[in-house]
């Protein structure tokens, strides 16, 4: 920021959002100056997205006030937000592929008489705006012929020409290549020159230092600081502000890890993954930790055969499965990221869900052996402590934690000896979390190999014996878990930092 006095375009005052039992955003107060790139950082769950939802009108604050361009700002929809001056670039693209670039840019702003468009300066204006920020895009092209990065720029141009002078960008580089990121940065800098304020949210700290003028750090729903980035002493200080507290360490070595390698992955490559190699031993729990988009889910899906990949997977000395069906048959089971849509048949009962990954075990000539199914379901309900009145309960009626236990039961019933758990405790309450951790440890103690894919550091450090740190599709580093784990170092690595930056 320069010495000249800049005016505040956005300020929030005592902003608070309560959910039942949780205060997601807690009395946050800060303001943003005109024509800057303002970064918003914090760990997963720090309250960034809740704050953004309040700014875009998707959520109403429990308490507090917002002021935009000097006026009180109480949006109830993204459109009202835009009219108030704030446009948002969401992670998913909101362009209409079937229309041309120009038609997209003017969408919803056209001048018309009797339902037919009339000539106005709108088209010239939006074409101009587009040309200012990215002259390479042809306004007459159909949007379906553009790359993701170009579509994003079309959205930015639309936001800029809609009259909004503040544009929120939520992880805009998640789907972009390095070169496209550079181009986006150029666009953002041009916006800044044109008096647009950009609120930039990213997990990638390098981007923040490269692009940002000012930063707001959030932690556990609270506002930690808002200051010029030039006042921040490098990544280390920023990370320190983001973590703050000491991470609770509950890991105790279980000492039962076998010597035998169960699965060996060599040079896995997919669209996102780059040369991923590791192994898992019998009775071991390994963790994959990284931020959203680092490639954890992609590793899990590759091992399970759900996505195609280049590279070699050896499981018990033989090639791994290339389809989920093969993987299950060989003894690999996946607890997927999205429990409701990928893990469970929510309209079926517990009894009906449990056997689906291994029907031959409970059928004879294609007919269910009803008694066996009931016994199996009942056993898992007892073994995993699923809180339900009966095995006939529909799984949609169960709590998140109990649903997750049913998914686990499904995997265990398949008699897998390698369990891939993708975000195993997402959306699960604290009590059930602990129970699931105990189940995972028990499974490992029985000799199963377990891989946990998680974006929660406490989870990974709580139960895993070894942890792989992921960033941008690569395994950056392998860490033996233990009492001396350097948390700041881990956060530095998963946000894209090199070793030397942290110290």
């Amino acid at each position, binding site marked *: 920021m320069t010495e000249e006095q800049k005016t505040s375009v956005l300020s929030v005052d005592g902003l608070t959002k309560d959910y039942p039992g949780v205060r997601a955003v807690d009395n946050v107060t800060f303001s943003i100056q005109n024509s800057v790139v303002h970064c918003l950082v914090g760990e997963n769950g720090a309250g960034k997205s809740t704050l953004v939802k309040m700014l875009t009108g998707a959520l109403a604050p429990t308490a507090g006030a917002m002021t935009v361009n000097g006026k009180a700002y109480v949006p109830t929809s993204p459109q009202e937000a835009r009219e108030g001056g704030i446009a948002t670039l969401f992670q998913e693209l909101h362009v209409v592929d079937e229309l041309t670039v120009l038609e997209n840019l003017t969408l919803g702003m056209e001048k018309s008489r009797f*339902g*037919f468009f009339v000539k106005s300066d709108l088209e010239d204006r939006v074409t101009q705006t587009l040309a200012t920020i990215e002259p390479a895009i042809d306004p007459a092209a159909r949007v379906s*012929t553009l790359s993701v990065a170009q579509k994003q720029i079309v959205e930015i141009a639309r936001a800029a020409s809609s009259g909004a002078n503040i544009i929120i960008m939520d992880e805009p580089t998640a789907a972009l290549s390095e070169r496209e990121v550079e181009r986006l940065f150029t666009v953002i800098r041009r916006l800044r020159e044109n008096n647009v304020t950009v609120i930039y949210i990213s997990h990638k700290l390098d981007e923040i230092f490269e692009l940002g003028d000012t930063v707001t750090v959030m932690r556990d729903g609270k506002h930690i600081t808002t200051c010029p980035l030039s006042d921040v002493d490098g990544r280390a200080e920023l990370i320190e502000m983001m973590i703050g507290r000491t991470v609770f360490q509950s890991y105790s070595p279980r000492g039962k890890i076998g010597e035998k390698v169960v699965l060996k992955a060599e040079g896995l490559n997919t669209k996102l993954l780059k040369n991923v190699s590791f192994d898992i031993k019998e009775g071991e729990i390994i963790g994959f930790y990284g931020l959203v988009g680092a490639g954890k889910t992609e590793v899990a899906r590759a091992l399970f055969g759900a996505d195609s990949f280049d590279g070699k997977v050896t499981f018990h000395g033989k090639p791994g499965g290339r389809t989920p069906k093969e993987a299950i048959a060989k003894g690999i089971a996946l607890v997927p990221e999205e429990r409701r849509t990928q893990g469970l048949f929510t309209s079926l009962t517990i009894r009906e869900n449990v056997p689906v990954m291994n029907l031959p075990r409970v059928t004879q000539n294609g007919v269910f052996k009803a008694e066996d199914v009931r016994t199996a379901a009942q056993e898992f309900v007892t073994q995993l402590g699923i809180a339900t009145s009966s095995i006939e309960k529909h799984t949609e009626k169960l709590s998140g934690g109990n649903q997750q236990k049913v998914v686990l039961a499904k995997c265990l019933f398949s008699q897998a000896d390698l369990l891939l758990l993708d975000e195993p405790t997402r959306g699960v309450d604290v009590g059930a979390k602990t129970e699931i951790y105990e189940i995972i440890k028990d499974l490992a103690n029985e000799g199963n190999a377990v891989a946990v894919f998680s974006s929660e550091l406490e989870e990974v450090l709580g139960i895993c014996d070894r942890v792989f740190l992921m960033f941008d599709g690569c395994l950056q580093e392998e860490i033996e878990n233990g009492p001396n784990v350097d948390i700041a170092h881990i956060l530095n690595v998963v946000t894209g930092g090199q070793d030397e930056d942290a110290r």
Partner: protein
Amino acid sequence: MSSQSKTAEQSVASGAANFLRNYYIYFVLVAIVALLSLANLDQFALFERGNFLNKRNIINILRVSAPILVVAGAFTLLMVSGYIDLSIGSTMGLTAVIYAMLAINGMPFVPAFLLTMLAGAVLGAINGILVVRLNITPVIATLITLSLFKGIALLLVQDGVSAIKSGGGLKMPAWFNDYGRDGVFLKLPAAFWVAVAVTLVLIVVQNRGKLGKYAAATGGNPTAAKLSGINTGRTVFLLYVIVGVTAALAGIARSSFMSLGDPLSGDGMELTAILVVLLGGTAFSGGEGRVLRSFVGALIIMALTVGMLTIVPAYYQTLVIGAALLTAAATNHLVSQKGKVS
């Protein structure tokens, strides 16, 4: 794929694919007409001896095509918006009955015509309310009204009579036939020209109108449309009303052509309309589709149906139409796959 890596070769290929996608339907029409005209119709002709391209034959095809031609455009816009109306056949039947009843009871042409169009608008609005307000899945909502509207039409004609027609002391007025049969220009009846006019208006609506663009936006990316401040509900509602009105125009055309108000006269129309629109290259998933191409699609279907009558036994017809559609759909799919650059 980034734009830099998009080579000239690819853009030529996608240009060719676009050309194919945009115009293949016209080639199909020409090919069908050519094939049919090559066939020696002398020993089979039902309509007229001689060549298929015979004037009377063409006039006949266009006359019986009026109902499908008049609904095709509106139906296209509705499907572009990602919605569908399965009740158009029943709307046609019911409005045909209403129109015939008004006429047979002495109402003059103009008020009877306008009232029937209004009835179509009301029926369309009912669909719109079910889908937009009550949030019922379009297929289910319009299946419900398919049954409801047909039920009402059957009730209206009751007493063992199968249709509203002259007899029992009441007589269809002399003008009743004129709209669907009498050549007014180029020997073609008003019903056909109304269909042409409606299509022209809808082409303009699609290219220069708010409704056309908003339909594409609603069908292409509803969230983006809403975030741009478009009232997608109102867009869809309006489209249902327009489809209702055109279905009423189709009902009027059909009943005038047949000189009676038959509650079942629109049966199967929904399938024909879907076929015609798909043949015109409209995506079932919404977002894409052109009014003009559906109009040509309707001409193709009618040329096939009627042309077929003249050269092959009637029971082959459905099979051949199915085969033609399969070819069209497959071509369309292949072409649109090639055209995709992502």
